[in-house]
């Protein structure tokens, strides 16, 4: 609806920078300086070891901070892609091709989720990441610039 009701009536790209040529890195730096909107991947990781199954009340209480945080980002029009929910279990293939079924007691951390946001630079993307509720749970957020396709040449 086209009026404020209260006050008035009325891309998932991952490129390892280390493997890039110096030229590309320069282009990225230029791009960041130009203040164009870039896309950043935010990956939340935390240790799931020792987790007990939460009660419905605990689950409900743990959802709100996530919804509010995502709402904050969406309200700034900084969500770059529709949200995707990921299965919590999953599988891990190790170097000797053993398959581990999640949740993983064997590996230290696993991905809690990921989103792609729009931000001008790393500083802004990091500011967004600082609000992530995974930090309250002892986890961390990895922030990565999405390198646009036309910068690969």
């Amino acid at each position, binding site marked *: 609806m086209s009026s404020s009701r209260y006050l008035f009536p*009325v891309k998932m790209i991952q490129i390892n920078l280390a493997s890039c040529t110096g030229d590309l890195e320069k282009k990225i730096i230029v791009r960041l300086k130009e203040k164009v909107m870039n896309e950043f991947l935010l990956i939340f990781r935390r240790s799931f070891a020792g987790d007990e199954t939460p009660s419905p009340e605990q689950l409900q209480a743990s959802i709100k901070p996530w919804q509010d945080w995502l709402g904050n980002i969406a309200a700034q029009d900084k969500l770059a892609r529709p949200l995707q929910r990921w299965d919590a279990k999953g599988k891990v293939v190790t170097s000797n091709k053993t398959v581990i079924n999640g949740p993983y007691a064997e590996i230290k951390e696993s991905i809690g989720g990921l989103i792609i946001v729009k931000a001008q630079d790393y500083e802004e993307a990091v500011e967004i990441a600082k609000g992530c509720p995974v930090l309250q749970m002892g986890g961390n957020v990895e922030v990565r610039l999405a390198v646009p396709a036309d910068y690969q040449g």
Partner: protein
Amino acid sequence: MDEKELLPHLFRTEYRKLVSVLCYLFGIEHIEIAEDIVSDTFLSASESWSIKGTPDNPTAWLYTVAKNKTKNHLKRHNLFEQKLSPDLKYTAEKFEELEIDLSAKNINDSQLAMIFTVCNPCISNEAQISLALNLLCGFSAQEIADAFLTNKELVYKRIQRAKEKLKEDKVQIEQPKLAAINARLDTVLTTLYLLFSEGYYSTSHHTVLRRDLCAEAMRLTYLLVENQYTNKPSVNALLSLMCFHSSRFDARLQNGVMILYDDQDERLWNVELIEKGIYYLNQASQGRQLTKFHLEAGIAYWHTHKEDTKEKWENILQLYNHLLILEYSPIAALNRTYALAKSNGKEEAIKEAEKLNLIDNPFYYSLLGNLYTGLDNRKASAFYRTALTHTRSDAEQVILKKFIEQLLH
């Protein structure tokens, strides 16, 4: 209803039905013929009724005259043989046998076919709404111009261009096929949603016109709910949303003055419409689809509870979160921040409001004014004054000045 009101009323309710049925019969190429015949029918009515008095059954009179005029027209212009017959969906041998079906069912079928024709993606959104108002709601170019706060010539040109485009592209007026329903229902719903919004939020002072716009949008949405193929969850959600909003129509406008939500007298809220809204919201919950209409209907539902409770604002906040994640809009972002203040407190909301960066939007400054009220009244007042310089609407200026005035005491 006295004679003076009767004909305009019938024009509003019957014009569109007759035009739809005739367009459906003739095809989009002859849309003007259909409009001419129906306009001529109303002209005859006004002449004849003023001399002979109103007939016992005015609607039946209009239908009979429209039928005869159609047959005469076809006879006179020999159109039936030369042009119309290949397009006619009816297989009458001669025009004397031509059946002009004005049964309730065919009227509904014709109107439904017309909605899907008007909402053809080959014409722009503004044109779709103008054409929908013109052909399906019987609004004149002047009335549409009043509702959109624009001029009549512009609306007229827009409608003409849209009609030409539909003809050029040889768009068929037909019952939407299942595939077309799925592909175009979103556009149809958006048009109906905008139609309703125009009526509900328009800054036009024309109260009667605005009410009519809302009623027309609801009537057309109801038509979709009534049809088994278009009776989808999203359609029910939209109708539910419209019911909840219109339940406050009387309360939010008194003597032409806008009454803000907090100041509304909830005894003026229409209980029957609220109940209907709940009914359609339940209907909308069947199936797995969650559209923005569902979320907006949910938000509108919680607004039918006047009392501020933690549960109410927490629900509204989460619905706005969902809505914004689904589709960003500045107004949703502002309303969401208001809900955030109600649910999580003003300090948190101010922090988030400042990140919204909607510096060209007058509502942005009035939101900040509202959030700072009670915390820092000087700041609040400054924000309201900034809002004042950003708005051109008289109604909004009056309200802003009232807010600034209140801060002084």
